[in-house]
């Protein structure tokens, strides 16, 4: 189980980005995760809870968005969805696919922060 290592890297990367952008009060980390990233979503949530407990990240949520598995189909001459991680072929025509275009993502895509800007009407 390497999800704990992944979470440590995730927190380090998120912290670095938050400092760089002068963001405080990060309430959620939004992650894009591909089926071929080698990371199990449920295990990631468990590891995240374990790693953040009692830390500054304790009240920060992890939001995972799964990316589709897709590749370039040489028969269709277009990017197509791939049947599954155990059948790396075009869903439309069944041609084996060697060029994966989506599915390996393990990226932080957004940090959600408390909106500190006072509401004009409030």
């Amino acid at each position, binding site marked *: 189980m390497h999800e704990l290592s992944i979470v440590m890297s995730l927190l380090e990367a998120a912290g670095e980005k938050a400092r760089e952008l002068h963001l405080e009060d990060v309430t959620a980390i939004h992650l894009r995760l591909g089926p071929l990233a080698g990371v199990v979503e449920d295990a990631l949530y468990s590891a995240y809870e374990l790693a953040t407990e009692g830390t500054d990240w304790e009240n920060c949520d992890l939001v995972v968005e799964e990316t589709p598995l897709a590749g370039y189909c040489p028969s269709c001459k277009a990017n197509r969805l791939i049947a599954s991680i155990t059948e790396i072929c075009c869903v439309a025509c069944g041609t084996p696919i060697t060029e994966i275009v989506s599915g390996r993502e393990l990226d932080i895509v957004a940090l959600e922060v*408390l909106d500190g800007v006072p509401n004009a009407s409030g």
Partner: protein
Amino acid sequence: MASPTRLVEVRQKVLKQNDLVARALRERFQEAGVYVVSLVSSPGSGKTAFLERMLTELRPRCRVGALVGDLATDNDARRLARSQAPVRQITTGTVCHLEADMVRAAIDGWDLSEFDFLFLENVGNLVCPASYDLGENLRLVLFSVTEGEDKPLKYPTIFNTADVAIVSKIDLAEACGFDRASALTSIEAVRPGMQVFEVSAKTGHGMEPFLSFLTSQASSKKARCQLAEGRV
């Protein structure tokens, strides 16, 4: 009422730090002219035996070295040292995979230009090593004939991130009723077009075609192994 929040878009790879170290390693390897090959498999697939055989056969004609990762013990490094090649152990403790930083630390003090080939044997694990780039030129995934023909279907991610599959312990194929066609179908399903070599580290069967492949890959990368020029 929940406090209003806003989303700040960022684009940051979670393993950015590892990827940066891996990229720096790849540049160092390239500059030094060393071709780097990593090996992944489940525990007991015969990585160490295969590596020992490769080191022994390559050593008279090339300059080879190896790093070997394990959770504990330096048994594998001592075993590989029998090949007379320089070998270093990486003991990961509780970490179930190698990371680029561990490789960087382990090669400290080695003059990489002294090598034609450097092998990185990962911790025996078919899950965790998949996500970590080690700066290698080629990633081999091994599975032995005793493990079941559907191993690639059970661990598709590692097969998909590897470049070449090695079916090991081929000398036992008949004894354990290995279904070759089914194994090849499984590999093809998870990694279409993947090159497969069938080897026995024990008898040496299949080693020569694989080593020829390896040296041709290395020389096409302008590594300095002179095998093709007959420095044998």
